[in-house]
């Protein structure tokens, strides 16, 4: 079984830290060459999971298979994984070259071979001009690339990224995440990335595992997570959501013991009535850059909508239509309408 996958398999993983169950019977399969995000708020266990894959933590129970091999009990130095740390963890007393060469030196590789490989990988991350600099002399983005180079040079079976972009400023973050994605695609390297940033997860991953309280709530493609959030938790975490208690029928919120989730972008507002739309008043208009967030009040419910054309003013009346609703019962998706 695991030989076919040749990526990463987590089977029934549990971990207790400080007397608290951090990871609870977690299962996850990452295919070879796939890029998977572990997404969740802080304290959900995503970093603990990554550290178990890397070998810094040994699970209380469960199995970790890496590239078809059981590595559950192996120390980090014996695993075919390479990690990029959140704060990069570059060795300040070594030059960029030496930082990247270190893993190869440990593998007792020949000098010429080390020279060539480090040269190649530093070229890939575009850092050859800094090879003799110390980590303290280069920028945060460059340090990040050194950390990435140090991981890539090991040609690992799996690349682990722990919030790799959180220490970069917003502009650079977008650029670096695109660089990482391009590199990952080119090298076809199996990658697990931990992040609390949904934008980052949505834009970079083949699949996303949304974590909550030590469990995986949903593991799907970004599109599916967005369109069919399996739980109310996921719907709230990915994108924006109007949450209204009741039920849904005939384009309206009706009495009921379910929860109706409406994405603001699934609401349209018009001056004229169309089938399925009902009278609404604009309570508030908030500019949000390339779109406007408007607060609508209808007879059945109040909710927000994202509008980018024909933006109404506060007090305007018109007709609001809910194009799509997610209906949850006991936190689980029961149907969409």
């Amino acid at each position, binding site marked *: 079984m695991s030989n076919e996958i040749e990526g990463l398999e987590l089977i029934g993983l549990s971990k207790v830290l400080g007397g608290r169950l951090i990871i609870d019977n977690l299962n996850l399969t990452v295919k070879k060459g796939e890029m998977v995000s572990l997404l969740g708020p802080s304290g959900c266990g995503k970093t603990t999971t990554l550290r178990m894959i890397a070998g810094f933590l040994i699970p209380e129970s469960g199995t970790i298979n890496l590239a078809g091999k059981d590595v559950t009990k192996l120390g980090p130095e014996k695993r075919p994984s390479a990690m990029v740390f959140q704060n990069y963890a570059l*060795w300040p007393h070594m030059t960029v070259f030496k930082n990247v060469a270190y893993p190869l030196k440990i593998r007792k590789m020949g000098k010429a071979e080390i020279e060539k490989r480090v040269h190649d990988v530093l070229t890939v991350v575009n850092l050859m001009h800094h090879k003799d600099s110390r980590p303290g002399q280069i920028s945060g983005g460059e340090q990040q690339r050194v950390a990435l180079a140090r991981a890539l040079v090991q040609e690992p079976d799996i690349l682990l990224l722990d919030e790799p972009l959180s220490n970069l400023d917003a502009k650079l973050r977008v650029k670096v995440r695109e660089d990482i994605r391009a590199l990952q695609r080119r090298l076809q390297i199996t990658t697990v990335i931990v992040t609390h940033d949904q934008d980052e997860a949505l834009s970079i991953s083949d699949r996303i595992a949304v974590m909550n309280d030590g469990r995986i709530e949903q593991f799907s493609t970004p599109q599916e997570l967005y369109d069919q959030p399996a739980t109310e938790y996921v719907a709230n975490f990915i994108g924006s959501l109007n949450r209204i208690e009741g039920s849904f029928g005939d384009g309206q919120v009706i009495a009921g013991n379910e929860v109706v989730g409406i994405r603001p972008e699934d609401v349209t507002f018009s001056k004229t009535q169309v089938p399925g739309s009902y009278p609404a008043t604009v309570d508030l208009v908030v500019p949000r850059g390339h779109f406007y967030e408007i607060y609508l009040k209808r007879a059945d419910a109040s909710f927000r909508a994202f509008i980018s054309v024909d933006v109404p003013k506060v007090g305007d009346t018109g007709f609001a239509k809910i194009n799509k609703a997610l209906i949850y019962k006991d936190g689980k998706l029961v149907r969409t309408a």
Partner: protein
Amino acid sequence: MAKRDNGLNLQSSNLITRFFIGLFVAFMSVFILGPLFWLALQAFTTTWTFPNIKPDGWTLIWWRRVFETPSMVEAIRNSFITAPIVVLLSAVICLPAAYAAARYNYIGRRVFLIGMFAANSFPKLGLFASIATLFYALNLMGTMVGVIIIQLLGTIIYMTWIPAAAFAAVPKNLEEAARDAGASKFRVFRGITLRMAAPGIFVAMVMSFISAFDEAQGTYLVGAPSFFTMPTEMYALVLTYPVQIAAVFSILLAAPSVLLIGLARKQIIGGQLAEGFQIK
């Protein structure tokens, strides 16, 4: 106008403050450096009799006398043999303890660290006296081994506390990154932890060397009358030789300490740890 007056007042009060600070610094300099300066002069004077402001003449004879007196040469030799041995032994014994105190949270860790201080806060002579009775039984009195053990005691606090802080300051992530890169635990310790804590360990070694080199109380109690180091030789010297000999000896005794502190200063100010690592 009022504002301007105020400004003037501020300026003049500033000047007065600065004057007093300057005076204080000058006074302290004379107080601290004065005796050293006097000592340095004494080592090169023929005689210097009251009430003459300057020495009666200059000479190097005292230096020759020191290096021609066998007991003094032996004391110098003994000092330069025992102190480095003490430092190395202390490092071998204390560095693992310092690492443990920095990295593991074992039961009694605080007690252990505070205990290091406790040993230093009691009157040493009492401790030495009880050790001496033990040394008599073990035939260690008057031997180099006995003196080394006595001097070792004074270095322990430096060799545990300073390196413990240095080890604790090495971010765990840096060790983990090395493990992740494939290095064994021992290799990580040697290549990353020890390397990064090196400036702190160097400072600890310097402090230990000075402590051992300078130790007189216990060394005298255990070493005399057969084993003398420079500080214990000073006792005899002050009583039986001209003051200029003592001055030469003092300079010889102070020189390594001054030199080492000068070297350690660079290491302390170097601050490599913060470089390139954003501690959050």
